[in-house]
């Protein structure tokens, strides 16, 4: 029965169509359809018999559409995501923390924040170039450290400009290059 090329092709198609469906349903369905074909076709079916029986069974896609998607089917698509915690790039994380610290330091003293922000930016850019930055930590670090740098430079220039006239207030007194 299953020696008939049309039957073999149909069963192979069905097997493929059932990929991603519940494993037990897949196995049961294939088994039951083999039984069905054996019963319906007997020992020596003609090609017309085979075509008729297969037409009554319907398309393999219609059969597969009636099967329950496998619980594992979700994990198949999740595979790239499941290993993301392991791939969380430590370098990118360090760069991110450094860039945030640099930003905070900026409020204390613009001079202290700038070098740290620069280091964080260099490290973060390197990390993004390596690829695999699934968490986005490296890109966040790039953005934060770049913003810190820009903000630091603007602050410094403002302080320089105002420092020439009158003594800078508060935190700027701590800065090594503040006007005397």
């Amino acid at each position, binding site marked *: 029965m299953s020696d008939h090329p049309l039957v073999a092709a149909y069963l192979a198609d069905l097997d493929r169509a059932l990929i991603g469906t519940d494993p*037990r*349903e897949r196995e*049961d*369905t294939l088994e039951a*359809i083999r*039984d069905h074909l*054996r019963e319906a076709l007997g020992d020596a079916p003609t090609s017309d018999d085979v075509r008729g029986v297969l037409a009554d*069974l319907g398309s393999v896609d219609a059969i597969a559409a*009636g*099967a329950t998607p496998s619980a594992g089917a979700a994990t198949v698509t999740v595979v790239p995501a499941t290993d993301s915690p392991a791939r969380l790039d430590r370098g990118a994380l360090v760069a991110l923390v450094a860039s945030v610290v640099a930003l905070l330091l900026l409020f204390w003293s613009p001079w202290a924040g700038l070098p740290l922000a620069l280091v964080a930016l260099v490290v973060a850019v390197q990390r993004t170039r390596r690829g695999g930055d699934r968490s986005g930590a490296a890109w966040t670090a790039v953005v934060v450290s770049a913003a810190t740098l820009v903000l630091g430079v603007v602050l410094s220039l403002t302080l320089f400009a105002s420092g020439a006239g009158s003594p800078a207030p508060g935190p700027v007194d701590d800065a090594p290059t503040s006007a005397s």
Partner: protein
Amino acid sequence: MAAEDALLTQLRKGVLEYCVLACLQRDRAYGLELATRLSRYQVLFASEGTLYPLLSRLRKQGWVETTWQESTSGPPRRYYELTPDGRAALDQFTRSWQPFRDDVDTVLAESR
């Protein structure tokens, strides 16, 4: 036509499995036999093959069980049979179906 197919697919959900149970109510049947019984209802069963994933689910749910029996004309046959749980589920469905159908009919008639 595609829209009609989609609508029928939607309507069959939640109903088909009880129709399979109903077809097994009087006596057990093997796959081809059951498929032949059901093929008379062409709106319900678009193709015979769709019966089999359904039977697998009914087995998993414990509503149908299978037994092998020798056949006079070939290899043994796998027979599908209702379990007491399956019978109870079918009774429940039968009780709910009538008022459900009545409501749908009434809504459709009254809103014309």
